[in-house]
């Protein structure tokens, strides 16, 4: 996000400010400076440890009213897409969701977002309201070059939270993703398995390939429904939309509901037995054959290449 913010700020000759809300977050100031933030607004309190829509909204709206930004960006994560509309509606601001491209046109932010799955794109502006707001698929934006020895001005924002006034409380939190294993949102490479994988055990060969490529493992709806992978891995209309640099689809036929969730990937590689599978229509490279033979061979070949 900072990479994109930097690009927009340079064009408009404006500052890049970052906002962090939470507890024990001061440690993030360094990395935000390194990636180009000029100012960092920090709202820190132990009571802010768990994300809470209403409390985070009240803190963020106060920061917005005080500092009056021109553009306000959020990641299109579940938290980002929960918080941004709440803030936008509270302050009566225009907001575009899940943008894949942002440019400045005639001094205004031009936001491009997919509608109807990824079948159609729409260009959107906020004609009258400021800040212009967008949630963005950060993975699709170019990362900023880190610069050491940069130090942003850190501005402490007042926090006044009364835990007793919380109307919603998180009772329990569970990660279904395994620690150390990359999540599909953050990975540059995703290896996905579908119905063609055949069993939970066979997913192991997909995991081995993902290890070699430092990739995340994804799954089609069919594979999740079969219980081979958790819901957090599901890519497609009823799961997560991803757009990594490389997407390898193994044994995925490519239903519309899956394609809309990964069509934005830079390079798509498909391995499937069925030459008629729709996945080949979007793939840059395809191998027609049995993934159970091909995936282990690919793992082996890539491993050797590394050494």
């Amino acid at each position: 996000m900072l990479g994109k913010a930097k690009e927009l700020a340079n064009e408009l000759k404006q500052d890049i400010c970052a906002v962090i809300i939470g507890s024990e977050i001061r440690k993030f100031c360094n990395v935000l400076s390194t990636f180009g933030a000029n100012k960092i607004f920090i709202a820190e309190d132990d009571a802010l440890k768990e994300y809470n829509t209403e409390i985070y909204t009240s803190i963020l709206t106060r920061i917005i009213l005080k500092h009056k930004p021109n553009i306000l960006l959020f990641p299109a994560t579940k938290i980002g897409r929960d918080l941004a509309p709440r803030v936008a509606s509270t302050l009566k601001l225009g907001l575009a969701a899940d943008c894949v491209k942002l440019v400045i046109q005639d001094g205004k932010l031009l936001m491009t977002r997919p509608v109807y799955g990824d079948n159609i794109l729409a260009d959107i502006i906020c004609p009258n309201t400021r800040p212009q707001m967008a949630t963005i698929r950060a993975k699709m934006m170019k990362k900023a070059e880190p610069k050491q020895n940069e130090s942003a001005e850190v501005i402490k924002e007042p926090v006044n939270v009364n835990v007793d006034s919380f109307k919603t409380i998180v009772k329990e939190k569970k990660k279904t993703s395994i620690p150390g294993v990359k999540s599909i949102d953050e990975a540059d490479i995703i290896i996905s398995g579908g119905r063609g994988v055949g069993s939970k055990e066979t997913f192991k060969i997909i995991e081995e390939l993902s290890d070699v490529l430092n990739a995340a493992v994804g799954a089609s709806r069919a594979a999740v429904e079969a219980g081979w992978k958790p819901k957090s891995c599901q890519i497609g209309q009823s799961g997560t939309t991803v757009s990594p640099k490389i997407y390898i689809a193994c044994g995925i036929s490519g239903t519309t509901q899956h394609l809309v969730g990964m069509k934005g990937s830079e390079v798509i590689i498909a391995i499937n037995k069925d030459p008629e599978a729709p996945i080949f229509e979007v793939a840059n490279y395809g191998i027609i054959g049995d993934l159970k033979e091909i995936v282990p061979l690919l793992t082996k070949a890539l491993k050797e290449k590394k050494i």
Partner: protein
Amino acid sequence: MRFIVCVKEVPESIDVKIDLKTNKLQEEGISTTLNPFDQFILEEALKLKKDEDEIIAISVGTPQTKMVLMKCLALGADKAILLSDNVFMGSDSFATAYTLSKVINKIGDFNIIFCGQQTVDGNTAQVGPELAAQLKIPQVTYVESVDKFEGQKLVVKSQTDEGFKIVESQIPVLLAGIPPSSFTPSLPPLRNIIAAQNKPCIIWNFEDLGGPKDKYGSAGSLIQIIKVYYPPPRKKGIVIVEEPTTAVEKLIELLNKDKVI
């Protein structure tokens, strides 16, 4: 208790076309259905409903949207309200939330508002939170199930970026729902479809809601769509049909040549 479920009529297939003459989406003549996210959350609301409770389904749409509300009635909603007026046309998520908030205020008391997390067409996922903000009530989004509802508190399971969380909330609250992968939408039996004909389905227009006209529809919208277009087509790919070992060799050669890896 009174539950209000906000629903939308959406195209059955998201493979819609752009009318090249008007540069707008072709909306006429395509078959439509109840947004699946909305059907899911309606079914969650029905699970909570006790005999004395009332479920009202509301939708902003065209006269044709009545069909979707009839489905909600057949599934078990007690009453439906359709907001249909040219004044509401061209609403963005903010103006839609405003219209819904006016309807809800006109209905009066409520305990829980249910929304689909997103729609399969616009996919902004914004109407729920924007509505909750305008009604000044808390919200829980990405709700997969409502696990407990006792007194003035309910407990829901909601998806997070890493997994899920269990959230306890006071009522009134707005819940935005997303079906778990195991969800299969119910088909209402014929007798319920027939019985739905006798349930009230009211149509309200701008005059019924009142207030300044420029708060609704495109005039009340804060974003403006300036162009819709097809994404650039993906380049025709290369398909390898060889023995596994040769195929993998060829693929790696191609990936090297194109500097993919």
